[in-house]
């Protein structure tokens, strides 16, 4: 027979065959069972009619300040709610007000005796309302809090599930590779994003490394992440080209991808023996490489996974020189904000990477830098994933048991690339290297010398370049040092693409570094700013080591 609020919905109940509430009636909706005496007095026709009293309706303000029960028949308000009450044959409305807030009404039909409600009736109803209102309000608050707690629990449960899924797919241990220091960090945000990383051992001894990020958060993102993880693993076990792996994974994911979701992913294939790394990128952040005191990006781009079928991914190749770091990372790091909503950004990350440390020490320092930036009260906005690889120093170290074979300087003139090549070939002749190794070394030396002539000497006879050759029990190491007239040689030039060159979209030149990287087992470029020189160090094993 009455009323309820929150939101301001008032129920009008009319009795038809008694006052019993429906068995499943919510006890916090006192419409039909309270007050029983009044309901009984309301007559035999009890039927539920919902009457909304919107806050904007004049009746709302009227009832909120009314001192007691209100005769509907005497109301002179332009009010749709009043009309609705009249249509429902409500004679008396008793506002339920507590702490100045209208939380509901008791709506009564005409008395069965057909007499008006007496003063005693009204006093009784007013007293009842005054006592019932706070109790109902308390009940409402309890219910709201229970609903809120249930919602929180539901979200917490979802987060637990998402975290569980996420953690199931993170590697339990990192690859252990001689001469490599590998570290990884995954820090979920409270809402758990869809970050992941993975290491896959490929049949030929190389290592596949994936870092990815699913748009969206929670369980849906975790499920897409799990599926992407599985697809990448499956494809990596039979394909060794990162571009093909991403392309195939994309084709498998497109038909399954939920609306408005996609996955950014970087896939790298590393040959631990040589440091050669091939990278393909589906819309993920570009990895940073720190080498010889400079930090550069490896520029590989492509469309995220799951958007369009038939995408091909370009591959970028390079060699991680001894003493160099590679960092793969997700958005959570660079897109973190400080209290002024300024973003951490790529430049801060790049600056932070200039420091020479590695492994978990590097990751700890990056996270500390981020914490300093965001401040102590920052709540992490997105998952943060970091993977770093460091090739140990000493891979090209010739100090221990090395023997100097030759050392010479040549004028920086065109043609002396071949002269340098021939002299190095002569110097290593007694080592009886396999002929194909000698050919590879020769091409690498001539290309390094050509860079020295072109960038280091500007083709000037009076600006020489130096070549040193040493041999260790396992390797031949050649250092080509130039006078760096043009500054540092770019170590991450655009990857030569023959089709684009033939189409005129790329210059015919630009093969030098690309060829060197394919010829030798390791290349390192380092600058000595004090001496104004730059040195390219080439290392080639004396015997074939790779399992191609």
């Amino acid at each position: 027979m009455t009323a309820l609020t929150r939101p301001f919905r008032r129920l009008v109940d009319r009795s038809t065959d008694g006052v019993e509430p429906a068995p499943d009636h919510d006890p916090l909706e006192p419409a039909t069972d309270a007050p029983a005496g009044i309901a009984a007095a309301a007559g035999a026709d009890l039927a539920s009619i919902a009457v909304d009293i919107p806050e904007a309706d004049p009746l709302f303000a009227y009832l909120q300040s009314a001192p007691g029960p209100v005769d509907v028949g005497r109301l002179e308000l332009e009010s749709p709610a009043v009309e609705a009450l009249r249509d429902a044959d409500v004679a008396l409305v008793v506002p339920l007000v507590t702490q100045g807030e209208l939380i509901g009404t008791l709506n009564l039909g005409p008395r069965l005796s057909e007499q008006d409600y007496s003063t005693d009736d009204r006093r009784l109803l007013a007293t009842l309302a005054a006592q019932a209102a706070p109790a109902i309000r308390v009940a409402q608050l309890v219910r709201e809090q229970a609903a809120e707690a249930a919602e929180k629990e539901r979200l917490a449960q979802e987060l637990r599930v998402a975290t569980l899924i996420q953690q199931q797919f993170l590697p339990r241990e990192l690859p252990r590779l001689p001469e490599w220091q590998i570290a990884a960090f995954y820090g979920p945000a409270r809402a758990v994003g869809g970050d992941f990383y993975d290491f896959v051992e490929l049949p030929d001894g190389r290592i596949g490394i994936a870092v990815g990020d699913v748009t969206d958060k929670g369980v849906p993102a975790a499920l897409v992440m799990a599926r992407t993880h599985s697809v990448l693993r499956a494809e990596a076990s039979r394909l060794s080209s990162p571009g093909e792996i991403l392309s195939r994974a994309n084709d498998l994911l497109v038909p399954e991808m939920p609306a408005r979701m996609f996955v950014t992913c970087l896939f790298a294939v590393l040959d631990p023996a040589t440091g050669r790394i091939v990278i393909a990128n589906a819309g993920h952040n570009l990895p940073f490489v720190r080498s010889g005191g400079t930090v550069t990006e490896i520029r590989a781009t492509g469309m995220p996974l799951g958007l369009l079928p038939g995408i091909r991914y370009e591959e970028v190749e390079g060699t991680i020189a001894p003493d160099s770091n590679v960092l793969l990372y997700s958005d959570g790091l660079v897109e973190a904000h400080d209290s002024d909503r300024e973003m951490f950004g790529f430049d801060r990350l790049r600056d932070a990477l200039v420091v020479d440390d590695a492994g978990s020490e590097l990751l700890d320092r990056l996270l500390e830098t981020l914490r300093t930036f965001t401040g102590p009260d920052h709540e992490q906005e997105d998952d943060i994933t970091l993977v770093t690889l460091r090739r140990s120093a000493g891979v090209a170290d010739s100090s221990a048991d090395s023997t100097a074979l030759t050392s010479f300087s040549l004028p920086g003139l065109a043609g002396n690339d071949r002269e340098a090549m021939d002299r190095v070939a002569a110097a290593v002749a007694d080592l009886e290297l396999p002929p194909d190794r000698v050919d590879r070394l020769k091409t690498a030396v001539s290309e390094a010398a050509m860079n020295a002539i072109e960038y280091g000497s500007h083709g000037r006879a009076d600006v020489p370049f130096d070549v040193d050759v040493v041999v260790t029990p396992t390797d031949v190491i050649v250092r080509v040092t130039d006078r760096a007239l043009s500054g540092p040689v770019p170590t991450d030039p655009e990857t030569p693409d023959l089709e684009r060159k033939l189409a005129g979209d790329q210059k015919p030149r630009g093969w030098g570094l690309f060829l060197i990287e394919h010829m030798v087992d390791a290349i390192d470029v380092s600058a000595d700013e004090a001496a104004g020189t730059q040195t390219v160090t080439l290392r080639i094993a004396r015997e074939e080591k790779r399992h191609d």
Partner: protein
Amino acid sequence: MTDRSFGAEVVGRPDGVRLQMRGDLDSRADETLRDAYREVATSGSPGLTLDFGEVGYINSTGIALVVRLLADARRDGRGVRAVGLTPHYQEIFRITRLSDFMDIVEGDAA
């Protein structure tokens, strides 16, 4: 001292025109190779054989010259094949993918 300067000669053969090269294929071969291709173009031959049999050295600038020549030949609708490459330079032609755009014939057989 061995003369390693680059030279190129265009020779008409029953199976098409052949560009016989000798010496070092590097930046200094630029003009010679450009002139040689003009001669090939005037011959109107639908096919071109690049003969590397007497080329002892190719650096990345030389590769760039081959790329330019290949682009010109493709523009003119002229098929290109390469003979006389050592196994090492065959490998370089594979790495650079030049071998995807021209037939590499083992040895120096015509």
